[in-house]
């Protein structure tokens, strides 16, 4: 099993040479229609009348399961997101189901002894998304009135009409969501100063979080294509990332009078005090892409973490993301700088106050893909 996971990781790394994730298309959203208001003409287009039976009008099969592989996070995610359009409106109900497997230990220790410390996570997403167009009637009238007089090859005049309509009004998106998740943690906690028999403690914990949030999108606020988000997350979490990873070698010796046999096995362990705690996160985020530089995105985040009887931890993050052409809100990679504990409540060491991360996905943007 461990070998299989290792081979998977190698394959994933090879894929990564060409792409950040295996799935980067816009089509990762699939949909179902609500109720029985299915457009019969769709079917009549595909079939002749004689072939149609009543059952043809009832089934729409959702599709496009997406598989994301992030080698940096050593994570394989299977995602499916359904958009249910509410009859003849720009309102959608959202249902998403995700599952992922994660490798927690360092690449170096995997390469050295093929020993994988794994974890799993799963989450459910329920949401309501809607789009509004300001001055929709004016835009409708202006478009209908002018487009008929324009020749299809007159690109300049079409461009001008686009600007004129933009001045009349623009679209904006709103998204409310609730996102419960569960994560499994399984590893060996190592206490070198304990008695020999109690040096290794197997930990097996289930962690959870309930993420409730709102996002707003506008294509143009002072020239910026903008996504703003606020979320509140009560959670049961741990300090696994603060533990120190070791590779432990165990040797067994068997001997008779002539031959001595030594066998050794390697295992990955973590030292440090492992703690779980109840916390609440309040997170404000924004992602901005300027019209003049569509391949660069600016990320700003302000996260407050509350814990009972403990002072608030405030983290400010800023990041620069790089995206492919025509994909401004779906960046490939970004560099994020975190300033931890900006209020100096915890007297953190200087090396913990500041961190730079290379990130492969933008969570806030994914909702408007």
């Amino acid at each position: 099993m461990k070998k299989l996971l290792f081979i998977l990781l190698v394959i994933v790394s090879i894929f990564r040479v060409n792409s950040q994730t295996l799935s980067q298309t816009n089509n990762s959203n699939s949909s179902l229609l609500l109720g029985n208001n299915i457009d019969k003409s769709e079917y009549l287009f595909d079939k002749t009348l004689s072939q149609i039976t009543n059952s043809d009008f009832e089934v729409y099969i959702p599709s496009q399961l997406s598989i994301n592989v992030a080698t940096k996070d050593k994570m394989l995610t299977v995602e499916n997101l359904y958009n249910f359009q509410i009859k003849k409106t720009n309102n959608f109900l959202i249902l998403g189901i995700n599952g992922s497997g994660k490798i927690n230990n360092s690449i170096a220790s995997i390469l050295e002894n093929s020993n994988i410390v794994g974890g799993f996570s799963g989450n459910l997403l329920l949401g309501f998304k809607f789009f509004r167009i300001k001055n929709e009637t004016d835009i409708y009238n202006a478009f209908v009135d002018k487009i008929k007089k324009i020749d299809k090859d007159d690109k300049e005049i079409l461009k001008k009409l686009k600007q004129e309509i933009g001045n009349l009004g623009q679209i904006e998106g709103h998204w409310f969501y609730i996102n419960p998740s569960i994560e499994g943690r399984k590893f060996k906690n190592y206490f070198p100063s304990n008695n020999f028999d109690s040096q290794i403690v197997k930990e097996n914990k289930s962690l959870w979080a309930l993420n409730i949030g709102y996002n707003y999108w506008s294509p143009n606020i002072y020239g910026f294509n903008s996504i703003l988000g606020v979320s509140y997350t009560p959670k049961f979490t741990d300090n696994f990332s603060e533990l120190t990873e070791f590779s432990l070698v165990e040797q067994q010796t068997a001997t008779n009078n002539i031959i001595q046999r030594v066998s050794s096995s390697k295992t990955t362990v973590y030292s440090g005090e492992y703690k779980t705690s109840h916390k609440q996160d309040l997170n404000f985020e924004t992602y901005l892409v300027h019209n003049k530089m569509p391949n660069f995105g600016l990320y700003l985040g302000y996260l407050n973490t509350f814990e009972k009887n403990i002072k608030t931890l405030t983290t400010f993050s800023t990041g620069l993301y790089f995206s492919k052409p025509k994909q401004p809100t779906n960046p490939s990679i970004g560099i994020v700088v975190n300033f931890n504990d900006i209020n100096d409540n915890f007297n953190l060491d200087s090396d913990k106050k500041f961190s730079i991360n290379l990130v492969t996905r933008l969570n806030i943007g994914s909702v408007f893909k």
Partner: protein
Amino acid sequence: MNADVRLKVSGNTKAIPVVILEHLDFKNVMRFKNGEWSKTFLNFPIDTDKKLDFALLCAGIPFQECKVTVTIRVGNKTKSKESTDIFGPKGWAIIKDELKL
């Protein structure tokens, strides 16, 4: 002459407030399903010039591409055309094209 017409618009489009076919305009007529917008008109009257004029106003994320596929069927013959436009800085894309029968 009448023909069956199907419109499909890429799923990255967020709203399609207006669709114009020949001289008729339709408000919010497209439906979102299976990851894309679609609408089929059966027995749609085509002008005597034997081509279908179509225009769509679409809203989406600036600099993404809006792709419209129009398919027309007369009798057993089917013809298709794909037109694209890039969403402008204020999120609008305009598709205006024609499909000859």
